């Protein structure tokens, strides 16, 4: 069973590479039962959308 600390690392790495199969499964199991890490995941994905728009006059309001 992954700890939240490990899960957050995997969430982050998952944004940068395809995780090995075993890690992917372990993370999915963890996220299914952990609200904190699920929020963390959504927030890192949001960060990606936000930073992509940063300093882009067409996309920034």
């Amino acid at each position, binding site marked *: 069973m992954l700890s939240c*600390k490990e899960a957050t690392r995997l969430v982050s790495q998952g944004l940068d*590479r395809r995780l*090995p199969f075993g890690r992917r499964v372990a993370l999915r199991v963890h996220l299914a039962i952990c609200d904190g890490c699920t*929020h963390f995941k959504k927030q890192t994905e949001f960060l990606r959308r936000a930073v*992509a728009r940063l300093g882009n006059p067409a996309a920034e309001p």
Partner: protein
Amino acid sequence: MDDFRSRVERERSYLLRYAALQLRDPHAAEDAVQETLLAALAGEATFQGRANLRTWLTGILKHKIIDAIRRASREAPSASADEFEALFDERGHWVEMPAAWTDPDASLEQKRFFAALEACLQRLPQKISQAFMMREHLGLDTDEICKELAITPTHCWVLLYRARMALRECLEKDWFGAKGK
């Protein structure tokens, strides 16, 4: 091939224990094993005819471990990977679970949000923000970032992880947490 793959995959936990024992760093160990499994799958032909798969895999892993140790000594451990230690208890669970952000995408329509985001980015240590901006703003992949910053993939993932942890905290404090007040 698939049979070979599953035989190799079955050795993963043994190899992990072996690597963790020597590297003392579960993430470095995980990486060394992953590299070993990839090398093994690519080198199936080399294995043909040898007696013991585990011995052969361990031989490859030893080289990966040596590489990892060399790299670790080159990249003098920065501050320690555990600057976020306080966020987790001794069992690795959140001390304070991240709460949901309400309608974050609405913030993307607000100029003040981007000012807050920029202020948070500026508070990151330089190398961390460089890596993060290369990844998330310029859209480079980790390989390219490694090359540019002359760091290993593992180090790169650590930098990106720190950036995300710090930015999440910062936005939570300065934007999402403050919004409702």
